[in-house]
């Protein structure tokens, strides 16, 4: 379960749980006879029988044609057609061999269509639960203004795992509810830096929206990737 370390207006902080707010897809799938169907992936070619691998082994088309006729190297009868099952991700290096520790580079195309510039990318860790206590940003923005400025691409519900956390979250939700505002949450010394939910993930600006209704409360964390502006490249 995801967690986030939040600070409130009273200078307290707590690590609370985040749960998805996405609604489950209610759709089911069936065939024309009314039987349920499911999606399935089957092996069509492996790294050894893939056309590119065969071309690497036999660069000359005539040799490749002869090899295909003579030995059927494009078929791996033990693997062909079988369900893939659960898979993990992997990488092949330039020689087609497994590469277990690839280095990530940022390739930026040159304006003159020349050689792209490359630079290694540093690892960017998730920062929802920082080691140091987070800071209350104090940036309170009316909901009406905020939804006109940013598009919330992700949302989570902040929930408690024990009664003390509930009291902390309830007070925070009540503070926001009374003022009808959302508060920016983020990283850094001012609490306004980007939130990164996953390792190497996209940085987001986070905003908390709180409501209370009697003894109940709801606290949503909304993540915005950018502002609503028309960039120069858009017609």
């Amino acid at each position: 379960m995801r967690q986030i370390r939040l600070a409130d207006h009273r200078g307290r902080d707590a690590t609370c749980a985040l749960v998805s707010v996405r609604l489950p897809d209610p759709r089911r799938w069936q065939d024309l006879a009314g039987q349920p169907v499911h999606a399935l992936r089957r092996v069509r070619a492996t790294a050894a029988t893939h056309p590119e691998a065969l071309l690497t082994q036999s660069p000359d088309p005539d040799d490749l044609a002869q090899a295909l006729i003579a030995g059927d190297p494009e078929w791996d009868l033990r693997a062909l057609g079988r369900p893939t099952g659960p898979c993990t991700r992997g990488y092949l290096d330039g020689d087609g061999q497994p590469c277990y520790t690839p280095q990530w580079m940022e390739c930026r195309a040159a304006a003159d269509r020349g050689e792209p510039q490359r630079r290694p990318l540093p690892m960017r860790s998730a920062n929802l639960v920082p080691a140091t206590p987070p800071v209350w940003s104090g940036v309170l923005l009316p909901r009406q203004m905020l939804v006109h400025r940013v598009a919330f691409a992700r949302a989570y519900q902040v929930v408690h795992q024990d009664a003390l956390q509930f009291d902390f979250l309830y007070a925070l939700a009540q503070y926001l509810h009374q003022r009808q505002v959302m508060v920016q949450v983020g990283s850094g010394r001012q609490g306004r830096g980007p939130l990164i939910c996953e390792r190497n993930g996209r940085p987001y600006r986070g905003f908390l929206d709180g409501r209370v209704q009697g003894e109940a409360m709801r606290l949503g964390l909304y993540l915005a990737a950018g502002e609503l502006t028309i960039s120069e490249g858009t017609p």
Partner: protein
Amino acid sequence: MPILVEIDHQDARSTLLVTPLERLRPRHVRRVACDAQGRPCRAVWQTWDGLLLPPGGVAQGYENPDGHTVPRADVVATDAAGQPLRVHPATTQRPQRLEGPVPVDELLAHVVTKVYGVTAERLDLALRQSLQQGDIYRVPFRPRAATGDAPAFLLANAAGLFLLHAAPCRVEWVTRAQGVAADADEDEIDEDVWAADALRLWEEECV
């Protein structure tokens, strides 16, 4: 590619040209996994027994419980009770009626999946004034036929007009005694997004 959207509001018709906004990461910048010699790596799937499946090495299909392959054209979407769902036609072919103004909370009950910049070819004056005052309108928006109903929200700010395609979400009320159950299939925090991106490209390449 721009999409032409016609909307009716208070017996007046407006014509909008909506264009997906550029992704935040410029297209000329790509993240590439490289090997020790600096050569680009290829993303592959690895099966549980070590089989490496390169792009194009997987065939995707549908099967029934008997193990028989079902053609894609014979697969229909149903609700939980097994009743076939109605396929709603694309909304780009006919005028759509605006709903609203809707409260901000309705927009906050959705997650934006795509942002479109809007060029108004013809915009009703009353609608323009309403949008400039900060009103938000909801409009059915399906670029292609679909069974689900994912609405879009039309709003304006100083930078222009925007159409936000959104998917519904739900933030529940919780009390001290009652929590919210976490999804079992929720994505993990250790998910490496660069690698996920590489696999997404891999899958696009497969299609």
